[in-house]
């Protein structure tokens, strides 16, 4: 087990035991900014190193997956959990979108095992963040409130995470491997340490979801544990079909299997106010996130290995 995930466990334990350990919001913001920039820069540098010919079809396939996934998730939540239309749409948006922290743990997992991954994965991370949110909003309100779409899309596309990811990608791509070398000590060498602190805070936050988990009972746990695997399998299949390496396939599976807990909650809160924000956040942060970093990622790595004809 990668030691960074123990930091999540430490935060979770401290939170559940009602320790007074707390991370100031400013530090959370700093850590998440650095993580987003690091992922973007890393991807940009790689893109600069080996510019990609066949990128367009891959982009189309990934975007298509981003639009299709919520249509599978919505009826699942409706039938399976008997939640309201708004809540089902919210869950579809959260689970169709992606989690940057899970992606970062996935990257750390591959780096530890010296498994390379395709340079366009951070780009796919960006591409997958938005479509599910848009579909989720449509599912909730049937295109109503059209007057607010402009504002909403502005908020989603210019949200912090996309700006930093895309900005990092561009800067990494413009600067290239040489240009970026003086930034490496900060952004690349510290990556695991920054991720460790970030996961500590994620554990503390996840612990605050415990009460909601108790209240909303079995549904959330089941949804949060059962949904990732099929989603990730779809992601792995798409990755394999568009010709990603085993590492890249793993990461696309991680993206598909992960649930957003930053961009989606913020957008859905504004666009679908009647959805209960605790429901989706608890499932995403309190169940699926820990499930993925402890069990999901190794499993998706296995699946990718099987698809690529190895033993994982």
């Amino acid at each position, binding site marked *: 087990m990668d030691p960074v995930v123990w930091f999540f466990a430490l935060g979770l334990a401290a939170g559940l035991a009602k320790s007074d350990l*707390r*991370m100031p*919001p400013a530090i*959370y*913001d700093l850590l998440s900014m650095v993580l987003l920039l690091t992922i973007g820069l890393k991807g940009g540098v790689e893109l600069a190193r080996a510019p990609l010919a066949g990128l367009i079809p891959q982009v189309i396939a990934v975007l298509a997956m981003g639009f299709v996934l919520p249509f599978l998730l919505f009826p699942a939540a409706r039938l399976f959990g008997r939640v309201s239309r708004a809540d089902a749409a919210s869950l579809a948006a959260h689970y169709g979108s992606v989690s940057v922290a899970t992606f970062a743990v996935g990257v750390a997992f591959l780096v530890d095992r010296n498994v390379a991954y395709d340079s366009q994965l951070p780009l796919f991370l960006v591409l997958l963040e938005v479509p599910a949110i848009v579909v989720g909003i449509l599912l909730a309100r049937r295109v109503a409130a059209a007057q607010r779409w402009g504002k909403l899309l502005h908020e989603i596309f210019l949200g912090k995470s996309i700006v930093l990811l895309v900005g990092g990608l561009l800067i990494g791509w413009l600067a290239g491997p040489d240009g970026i070398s003086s930034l490496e000590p900060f952004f690349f060498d510290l990556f695991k340490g920054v991720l460790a602190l970030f996961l500590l805070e994620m554990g*503390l*936050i996840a612990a*605050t979801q415990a009460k909601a988990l108790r209240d909303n009972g079995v549904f959330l746990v089941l949804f949060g544990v059962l949904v990732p695997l099929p989603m990730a399998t779809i992601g792995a299949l798409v990755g394999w079909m568009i010709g990603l390496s085993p590492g890249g396939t793993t990461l696309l599976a991680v993206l598909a299997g992960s649930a957003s807990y*930053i961009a989606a*909650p*913020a957008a859905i*809160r*504004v666009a679908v*106010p*009647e959805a209960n924000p*605790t429901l989706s956040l608890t499932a995403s942060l309190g169940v699926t996130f820990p499930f993925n970093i402890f069990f999901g990622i190794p499993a998706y790595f296995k699946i990718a290995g099987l698809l690529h004809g190895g033993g994982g």
Partner: protein
Amino acid sequence: MPDDSRKLVTIVTEAALEHEVCGELEDLGAAGYTVSNARGKGSRGVRDAGWSSSSNVRIEVICGDDVANRIEQHLRRKYYDHYAMIIFESDVRVFRPDKFF
């Protein structure tokens, strides 16, 4: 001096609404507003500053009776059903009354 008395309207609500609400306050005729970060507990549970999207802001507006009423009507109609929000109002005396409608 009746003309230096105003209403102080205080709104405690979700941090995510700060931008939107402040824009609306201006549209409704407020000459200004003051915002600070807060955390708290209410009918919608604990809202703690640990994570910005789950924390609160505390918005204060000094304004005349009319604007105060308009603000309260608007916020109540638009946000009370689905968002964590409280509004309360008190009487204050201001200096340089020309700054506040």
